[in-house]
């Protein structure tokens, strides 16, 4: 067993940290306040070739794995960028994955090189208002018409839609069969045609810089060539997005937790009350020490899941567990950081409140903590399905 990063991974870690830290905390405060997309940040990462990290070399990327993408996103978050910095970048990793794994040669040639450069901006259209976590009940339908498909339906929580040029879209191509509920859905790599898709932004608790939206899709035409993988097997192809998404959001939670912890530790050393640094009180120190230990543990689980995925092994249990423990560890670290700062933890200029608001997301999305526990109960422990 080898827990040491390779020299190349170490270099990636260091260079991403340097680039990400060149965007000061005030940059993110400003983006959050103005609800402005962090284009400068995304463009800096595009210029460094980082957006092509998992795109195969033959299509203009670097052909690395979810392991390296995890290192990338960890350093972005540890630098203090939060989900505001992580979300725009992770859309270059998990939405293209099914295309890489299951797309036709023509589809890959057409889109992957433009994803690698950042020219294509993607969104991920799975969740629906009337289906929620039960993906098999999505109602958006794609009907065969001539040489292609025409899509009608609604999506919700579609992140990045305001800037998206393309969307990975899951739609029903056959009615739900209760015996095989996850078949009959198809995955499309669709151009984001704004004459057929109405975007309505949702105001939310955190990450104002990166939009999440309701989509109303009316008559979106998609050529048959833009089906990713097999018709009717879209959900199974989508798993190659969902597992990396869990792994990446887990490592983001770890990174955000570390950014908050770093600030809290610094503050605990400097802030003097009752004639001593507050960090000398165990009631202040222990939550920070505990946060450190939990973040380390969550990182191990996450990197194991990434390793499994990159080696083509089943990783559902590990990716889900990583998301579960990392969301918890990251949230606890941010909460301890706010508490350590006392009143100033509530003030924007100390930055931990933004991280606290942002990290709350990971207990809900991309999959809720309860649904992870459902998955583990049923698929790992073999307990009867509860719902």
């Amino acid at each position, binding site marked *: 067993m080898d827990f040491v990063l390779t*020299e*190349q991974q*170490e*270099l*990636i870690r*260091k*260079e991403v940290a*340097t*680039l990400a830290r060149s965007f000061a905390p005030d940059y993110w405060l400003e983006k959050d306040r103005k609800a402005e997309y962090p284009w400068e940040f995304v463009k800096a990462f595009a*210029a*460094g*070739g*980082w957006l*092509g*990290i998992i795109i195969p070399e033959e299509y203009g990327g*670097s052909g690395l794995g979810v392991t390296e993408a995890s290192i990338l996103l960890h350093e972005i978050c540890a630098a203090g960028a939060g989900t505001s910095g992580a979300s725009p970048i992770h859309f270059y990793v998990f939405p293209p994955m099914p295309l890489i794994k299951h797309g036709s040669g023509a589809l890959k040639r057409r889109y992957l090189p433009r994803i690698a450069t950042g020219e294509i901006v993607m969104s991920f259209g799975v969740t629906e208002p009337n289906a929620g976590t039960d993906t098999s009940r999505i109602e958006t339908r794609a009907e065969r018409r001539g040489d292609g498909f025409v899509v009608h339906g609604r999506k919700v929580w579609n992140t990045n839609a305001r800037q998206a040029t393309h969307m990975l879209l899951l739609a029903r191509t056959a009615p739900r069969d209760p015996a095989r509920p996850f078949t009959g859905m198809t995955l499309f790599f669709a151009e984001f045609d704004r004459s057929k898709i109405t975007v309505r932004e949702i105001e939310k608790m955190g990450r104002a810089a990166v939009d999440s939206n309701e989509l109303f899709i009316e008559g979106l035409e998609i050529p048959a060539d833009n089906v990713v993988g097999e018709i009717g097997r879209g959900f199974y192809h989508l798993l190659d997005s969902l597992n990396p998404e869990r792994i990446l959001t887990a490592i983001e939670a770890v990174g955000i937790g570390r950014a908050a912890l770093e600030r809290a530790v610094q503050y605990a050393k400097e802030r003097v009350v009752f004639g001593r640094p507050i960090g000398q009180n165990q009631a202040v120190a222990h939550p920070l020490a505990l946060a450190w230990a939990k973040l380390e543990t969550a990182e191990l689980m996450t990197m194991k899941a990434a390793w499994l995925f990159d080696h083509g092994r089943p990783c559902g249990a590990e990716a889900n567990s990583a998301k579960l423990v990392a969301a918890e560890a990251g949230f606890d670290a941010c909460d301890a950081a706010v508490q350590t700062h006392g009143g100033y933890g509530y003030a924007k200029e100390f930055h931990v409140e933004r991280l606290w608001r942002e990290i709350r997301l990971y207990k809900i999305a991309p999959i809720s903590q309860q649904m992870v526990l459902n998955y583990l109960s049923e698929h790992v422990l073999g307990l009867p399905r509860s719902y």
Partner: protein
Amino acid sequence: MNIVVCAKVVPLSSVTIQIDPATKRMVRKDVSQELDPQAAKAVEEALRLTEKQGGSVTVVVMGGDDATIGIRGALAMGATAAIHLSDPALAGSDALGTAKALAAAIRKEPFDLVICATESSDSYTGLVPGQLAQLLGVPPLTFATSLTVEGRTVTIKRQSEGGYDVVTSELPVLVTVTTGINEPRYPTLKGIMGAKKKEIRKYTAADLGLGPAEIGESGAREKVLTVGRPPARPAGTVIKDEGQGGKQIADFLANLKLI
């Protein structure tokens, strides 16, 4: 134009440097290393020159096995090739021993220009470049805040009290560059991927024709006698602004003949 850059690999700037009380040397074992940010400026300057007029950039690094991360860092920035002087016999070399090892390696290369940082950001002696120029038999142009090459003529600007000096020389020459000379590029992911494929040539002391009389602890003529903390600075003067703050600051500076 063939450029050789002498680069040091040093503990990460975020690491608090520890001194081993027994050897009085910096503890480098189990400490994360990186290409010295000062050396990165020398690499950057070399890359800018060769991007304009063609040629190669060879990075020479003397250091332990864990220095390769910093060497790959220089290759990731775009250096053409790298030479790693790595041998337990080199450990403990003083500045002159280091200069001898670097000179021996550089003599094996066709070179027009050698670029060094003015000093490394871990030990700050600033001795090696001058010694190296002497050993290579080329003029040293030091403290460059800018560097240009036209044909075979090298021109640097060197900060001086009242402005700057312009110093020129014919190639071959050794130039030391200062911190302000440039902002080094960030290696791209493609650069990092490419660095893995570039060869790092390794030389031992024997390859360099150097023995214990010249290098390592035994060859060192400098001896570190003690290492201590600098004396604490006296407390500063606090000026409270009660309407007269600006004037008080001006008076203070005028007193020191700074304005």
